[in-house]
């Protein structure tokens, strides 16, 4: 049996791929602790997109000339990279979107409007980002379906013991949950939720925006019916994302947006739809961005998805230990063993805006907000948190500067 030594991640070296770290903030080195919001971009992605524009640019799926063929090939090669990354059975099941929000709305509209009605129930979790919460809440309203929320315990983990009660609300038709919470870093038991959803005869929709960039995600192993993610959080450009959908469902669904590219034949009387996945890709896609997402997938795959997960796990353990030494800091969410590289916290008697502002003066970027999870904020009895999050280029020195900055916060507000 061949023994493979797991690759270790060398963040200091990887960091040199990211031009942004060459630019100080307020004269201080940049400590970028906001990758959960959006990640920085390596030179490899930026260069590849520029080369694409300079050497292979023409509209995709339109021209017969060589340039158009090259552009199309680059775009479609990226689709295959997405397929392989999440182990989807076929590229026909991989739809390019603008971001994960669009992918989740696609499911809520194209599937939800035709499949939900009075007596049915759409279920989400209290940990959801608004992108996987509001569409289901609103489509349920429009179709007369019930809307239910799986609650969390005080550690920020889903209360699966509440599922039976939720099942009493009617016929569960859809369960929508994120794989990793963007606010608390909670890693959700999607396999168990999927099993429950399928027992109820429901579909399972997964928001993997915080998972795909940081850990191995396999749609076949999860057994989910839809799964979306977004390019800009995985070292790729903005304006691209992908949605996996199970073929039988996609085939039965009506299109979400309509126009060019998604049709087969149009007459005054009638229109027929293009094959999968193009039925769901109306209009000229952001194909250079989709191509750039493919290059970003190559980049993180080369680094090693498992290595990224393991490294972030070390960092989150480190920051939790350091924060635990500060009695005036409250940390939200599960223990290190059960969380991804995301930590939300508050400093006693100081608003997170003020925390983030003072940290900024030290070159430390953290997000201060409700993180698009207002129902979760309400559950925690707060309006906002400061949040530090990591990626493959994060280094322990950034955690030192974060902790140093928090001491300064305390001093200013003493």
């Amino acid at each position, binding site marked *: 049996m061949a023994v493979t030594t797991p690759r270790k991640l060398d963040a200091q070296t990887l960091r040199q791929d990211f031009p942004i770290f060459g630019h100080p903030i307020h004269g201080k080195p940049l400590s970028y602790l906001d990758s959960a919001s959006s990640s920085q971009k390596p030179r490899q992605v930026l260069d590849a997109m520029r080369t694409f524009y300079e050497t292979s640019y023409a509209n995709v799926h339109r021209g017969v000339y060589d340039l158009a063929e090259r552009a199309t090939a680059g775009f479609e090669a990226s689709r295959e990279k997405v397929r392989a990354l999440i182990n989807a059975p076929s590229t026909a099941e991989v739809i390019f979107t603008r971001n994960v929000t669009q992918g989740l709305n696609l499911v809520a509209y194209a599937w939800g409007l035709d499949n939900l009605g009075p007596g049915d129930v759409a279920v989400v979790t209290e940990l959801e980002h608004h992108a996987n919460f509001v569409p289901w809440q609103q489509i349920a309203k429009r179709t007369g379906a019930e809307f239910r929320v799986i609650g969390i315990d005080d550690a920020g983990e889903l209360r699966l013991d509440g599922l039976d009660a939720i099942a009493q609300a009617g016929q569960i038709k859809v369960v929508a949950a994120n794989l990793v919470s963007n606010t608390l870093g909670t890693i959700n038991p999607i396999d168990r939720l999927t099993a429950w959803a399928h027992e109820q005869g429901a579909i399972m929709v997964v928001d993997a925006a915080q998972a795909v960039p940081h850990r191995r995600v396999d749609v076949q192993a999860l057994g989910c019916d839809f799964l979306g993610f977004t390019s800009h959080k995985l070292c790729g450009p903005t304006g691209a994302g992908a949605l996996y959908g199970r073929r039988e469902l996609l085939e039965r669904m009506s299109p979400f947006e309509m126009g060019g590219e998604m049709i087969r034949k149009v007459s005054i009387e009638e229109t027929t739809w293009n094959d999968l996945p193009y039925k769901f890709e109306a209009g000229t896609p952001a194909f250079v961005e989709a191509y750039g997402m493919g290059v970003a997938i190559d980049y993180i795959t080369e680094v090693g998805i498992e290595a990224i997960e393991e490294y972030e796990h070390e960092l989150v353990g480190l920051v939790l230990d350091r924060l635990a030494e500060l009695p005036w800091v409250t940390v939200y969410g599960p223990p290190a063993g059960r969380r991804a590289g995301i930590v939300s916290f508050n400093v006693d008697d100081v*608003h997170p*805006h*003020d925390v983030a*502002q*003072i940290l900024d*003066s030290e070159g430390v970027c953290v997000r201060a907000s409700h993180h698009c999870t207002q129902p979760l*904020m309400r559950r925690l009895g707060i309006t*906002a948190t400061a949040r530090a999050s990591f990626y493959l280029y994060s280094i322990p020195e950034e955690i030192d500067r974060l902790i140093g900055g928090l001491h300064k916060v305390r001093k*200013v*507000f003493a």
Partner: protein
Amino acid sequence: MDDQLYREIILDHYKNPRGHGVIEDADAEADGMNPLCGDEVSIYVAFAEDGETIEDVKFSGRGCAISQAATSMLMELAVGKTADEVARMPRDELLEEIGVPLQNNPTRLKCALLGLTTLKVALHKAKGTPLPDGLAGFDELELK
């Protein structure tokens, strides 16, 4: 820059807010929210006999040091003025009072102006005075 931002006077108003509280049976009131951060403020106004002059004004809610301090200073500025005067008060008058550089920080500018915008909305509802022109930035401000 925080050394300029978190001046003594800001921290003083933040820690000891003037006019913090609720006026029962207020003559005018409104709730404001900053959709960016979820911060909320409620403002209550009591008019004098003439029905125009602001005799008492209070605020409640939570927010960052900038929004709390700015609203606290606003309470001191507004007392004794008429509804019309406050409705026409340019935002720069409050910003000068706050005295910290926020021009290059539109996010924090919203924090600073949340109280003033909400007060103007309260007066608009009670007296029909003009709405603040900056309301564009506060789409989700509740007009209850």
